């Protein structure tokens, strides 16, 4: 059996979540990798990749041409895998539609070549499902599979032509500039909620994030209130993170937020409300005013 893994390359490096997808794909046998846009060399350096299919003509992750191309080569593979990123969730279900396959999103555990575990109901239940499709199409959670190393391999690269896309045209992308680690890849995440009160107060998280080399996240309520941009949202429908340390500041711990962070190794909660559900999953909690605790925490670190 050979699996195909879709790798996302950013700033010349394969994203950590994609390297986790490679680890998952390697469970099925040999692995070919496909890269849209530049970055084939970074993919070729990953140990465990047998062959890299490079599509430099598809610089954006438009789902329509990407899915068309994947469909044209799908018959060579038993499994097609991507990380459960915005890109993976855009392209792979469309590919599944083209191939009349039922995709298996957000896989957290591989039981065997056709049996997978995935969370449902915001992670309040784990379903084990067996697929009868000839080609399995799955996205996997980066937090559930160790990322493959960045180098040590030297796979050959084949270049493929990009299919045309007339119905769908890329206009532009606005990426938020940040020197911080990616949310899904960070060892430490500090997130703010509605208790931060406004966008300016989110800056209080920065000195602590600097000291811990942490990524900054936000609850849905904080994003909805305009305190933080959408790409910072942690939760059922935002980013799923499982860092070594997760610090939840001024957020209550709604079901949909817990779905995005409750697999973190150590959870810290800071909240004025002792009854806040976040304390029920926290290893360490401080009941109190975050505006007093955050400066004290910065000083103590």
């Amino acid at each position, binding site marked *: 059996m050979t699996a195909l893994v879709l790798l996302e390359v950013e700033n010349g490096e394969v994203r950590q979540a994609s390297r986790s997808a490679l680890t998952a794909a390697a469970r099925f046998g040999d692995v070919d990798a496909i890269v849209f846009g530049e970055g084939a060399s970074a993919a070729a350096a990953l140990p465990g990749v047998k062959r890299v299919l490079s599509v430099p003509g598809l610089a954006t992750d438009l789902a329509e041409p990407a899915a068309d191309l994947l469909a044209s080569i799908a018959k060579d593979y038993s499994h097609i895998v991507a990380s459960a990123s915005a890109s993976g969730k855009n392209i792979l279900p469309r*590919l599944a539609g083209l191939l009349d396959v039922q995709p298996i999103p957000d896989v957290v555990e591989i039981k065997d070549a056709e049996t997978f575990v995935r969370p449902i109901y915001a992670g309040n239940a*784990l379903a084990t499902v067996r697929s009868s499709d000839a080609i399995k199409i799955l996205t996997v959670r980066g937090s559930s599979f160790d990322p493959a190393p960045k180098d040590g391999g030297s796979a050959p690269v084949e270049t493929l032509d990009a299919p045309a896309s007339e119905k769908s045209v890329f206009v532009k992308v606005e990426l938020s500039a940040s020197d911080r680690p990616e949310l899904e890849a960070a060892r430490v995440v500090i997130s703010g909620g509605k208790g931060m009160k406004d966008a300016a107060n989110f800056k209080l998280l920065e000195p602590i994030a600097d000291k811990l080399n942490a990524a900054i996240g936000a609850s849905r309520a904080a994003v909805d209130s305009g305190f933080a941009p959408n790409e910072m949202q942690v939760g059922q429908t935002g980013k799923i993170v499982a860092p070594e340390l997760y610090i939840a500041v001024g957020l209550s711990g709604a079901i949909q937020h817990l779905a995005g962070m*409750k697999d973190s190794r150590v959870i810290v909660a800071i909240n004025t409300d002792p009854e806040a559900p976040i304390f029920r999953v926290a290893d360490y909690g401080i009941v109190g005013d975050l505006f007093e605790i955050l400066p004290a925490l910065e000083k103590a670190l």
Partner: protein
Amino acid sequence: MKILVPVKRVVDYNVKVRVAADGSGVETQGLKMSLNPFDEIAVEEAIRLREKGVATEVVVVTIGVQAAQDILRTSMAMGADRAILVKTDDTLEPRAVANALKAIVEREQPGLVCMGKQAIDDDMNATGQILAAKLGWPQGTFASAVTVADGRIEVAREIDGGTEIVSLALPAVVTADLRLNEPRYASLPNIMKARKKPLEMLEAADLGVDLASRLTIVSVAEPAERKEGIKLGSAAELVEKLKTEAKVI
């Protein structure tokens, strides 16, 4: 232009479900059911496009049990013009739902399908993309803003690093993310009016499409519970614990 809005009846987002004792699924009996929150946002967006004069009619459709009429009435109370219930007692997978929706699209000929990006029960985030693929239409997933002009729709999409904008030729499928809009509450007079709006009922089996499942549920289990930890008195104490006990910093 007609807009078709597929909607789903799900366990209300405030309700925490329990896994059935025999591990066959989750207990949904007697739980409060609601219009899937992302679908509610899609309904709202479709109504706004009609209010702007971009669309002329908003049709909501659900594939589900007889009782799913309630979410169709809710959608019509918000302002949708009419509704279609495609009846089935089976739990359908996104692929099967997309097959049923494709049949409805072929019958209704909408210029746009606008739907939630994800149902909060199975958390699949797949039906819109599968439907778009099967129709050969372009897709604008995880939309946070849409603009319709000159036979195209421009969609701002929430992606991992920020926001991406794509321009799609209509007809297209758009899936709504959280920030697309804030849905309105239905007023009492509109709830009354919605009772008189047309609601057509079809049998899913009569559509003549493949509704089979490709996934077998082997088991459903509770996730590992986290133990409640300890409360600390100060930030200094916290740092001490993180260093010496948790050894995480």
